[in-house]
């Protein structure tokens, strides 16, 4: 079970991610990022793109993963659907089915911290838009 919730931030967009494990946070982050990019349009897990894990702790790994997903969209218009074993599933942007909502410049490090307790994992991520 993963979830995301946008939380107030004046200039940029902050999202709170929740999941049962670290990997689940990636899925919640991908879901949030997809909503920012193309709203609630369906994105099929038709193709896979590899993402090399980077970062020395869970927070850095999450930020890098989402940054790499954003890079795939920015350079190849590859929309993310879900997290795969070695990267991300998704499909190319299709103008007949997808409407671009906004440009997301970056996944910031501002206030980012992956936390865990008996209820699961939690992180807040600020996207620069």
């Amino acid at each position, binding site marked *: 079970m993963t979830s995301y919730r946008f939380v107030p931030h004046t*200039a*940029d967009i902050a999202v709170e991610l929740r999941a049962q494990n670290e990997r689940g946070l990636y899925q919640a982050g991908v879901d949030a990022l997809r909503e920012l990019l193309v709203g609630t349009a369906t994105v099929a897990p038709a193709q896979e793109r590899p993402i090399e894990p980077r970062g020395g702790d869970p927070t850095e790994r999450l930020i890098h993963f989402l940054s790499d997903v954003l890079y795939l969209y*920015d350079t190849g218009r590859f929309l993310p659907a879900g997290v795969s074993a070695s990267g991300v599933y998704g499909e190319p942007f299709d103008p007949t089915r997808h409407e671009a909502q906004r*440009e997301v*410049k*970056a996944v910031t*490090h*501002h206030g980012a911290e992956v936390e865990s307790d008996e209820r699961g994992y939690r992180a807040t991520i600020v996207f620069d*838009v």
Partner: protein
Amino acid sequence: MQLERIDAYRWRVPRHGGMRTDGLIFADDGLIRDLEGDQAVQQVANVAHLPGIVGPAIAMPDIHWGYGFPIGGVAAFDEQEGVVSPGGVGYDINCGVRLLATPLDIGDVRPRLKQLVDALYRTIPSGVGASRSDVRLGRRDLERVLRDGARWVVAQGYGSDADLEAIEANGSLPGADPECVSDRAKERGGDQLGTVGSGNHFVEVGYVAERYDATVADRLGLAPGTVTVFIHSGSRGLGYQVCDDYLDTMLAAAGKYGIVLPDKQLCCAPIGSPEGKRYWGAMNAAANYAFANRQLMAHYARQALRTVFDDEAAARTRLVYDVCHNIAKHETHDVAGRPRRLCIHRKGATRAFPPGHAELAPQFRDLGQPVLIPGDMGRYSYVLVGTEGAYRETFGSSCHGAGRRMSRHKAKQLARSRNVPKELEEQGIVVRAATRATVDEEIPEAYKDVARVVDVVHAAGIGRKVAQIKPVGVVKG
């Protein structure tokens, strides 16, 4: 966070905890109230923690909550003991504004306004990941753009030497090193030169509605009713990627050099360290890309004017000025009565050099540097000039815009049941946008009233009002 009032326009964040200096915020009572409930003031205090900071950590009246540094932040660092921080520049390196003055009067343009806005919308790609099929830079040309900035664009025939004279640093910052820019960043920038992007970036047609200093306004080509074109954009995906790449470098560097960070986004390295030098090379390269981007967009704006009006309208459209508002630069400032070399970070702040400054082109030497302050898309924008007061108090810096006061989420909710383009059209403003989301998130109410921001700047003496420009046509991403 404790705030002490200094006078009607200045507030002190007293030094406490790990702060190495005070914070200084320029604002009136209302603007200070807008900061309640967010982290902007805390961010001013955080900047004051960084090593080698000289003078206070400063925030302009358009201050708002950013990431790392607040937006509207200015901080000076000693060249020997200080740091350089990608978070003090921002993701959109050399995001900036340029203002063109056309030879046309608003009376001539109104009947063909829709055609002009449509022509600008067609000619200058906007929106998410906007790219140009006609300007696809090969690796060698991209490296020339990174090294030479707007100068490269002019050398290709898109603009003139007169344009270069009216750009901060003549549109080409020294110290750019394309080798320090990653392949990823180059890939993200390869086909985006000459494009606006989305978010708060825009191309805006306006006219001179009011003048506060007719002599200076005349010298800048801003006669009453003159039609203008504002261009607001930066270094696009290339700059975002440079910042992202170097945040990783600087996080490691901060640990290596024992720098304690109150927020990871403030990660930094000593200016003279290998990490600091590489970021410097990459940042200046990205800044040059942004100068080139705005120069090319200005060329396409002239082309749109040619299409809708005539050759003369295009040829006689002059660049008033082009300023950076996300940048770090080496400058000399007087500190305690003696000149000192400093590294000035401006994040959402504009350089505002006074009359007589040696770095200004001859035509601005007796006026002071033009400072361009765009507002929201429904109200007005301002042209100011730099002052001695700014030079003395804010390391020659002024504000950069209205500053957001409402989250994008809230703005969207507010706009949901409305037709914002229609509302603006009823006010005489034609809007063309790639997506509805951008227009809704950018509704005028989402921003502070830029007139109040500019009035604080003027009253505090860190900028001087010259003219007000009202929008009549907006192209958004």
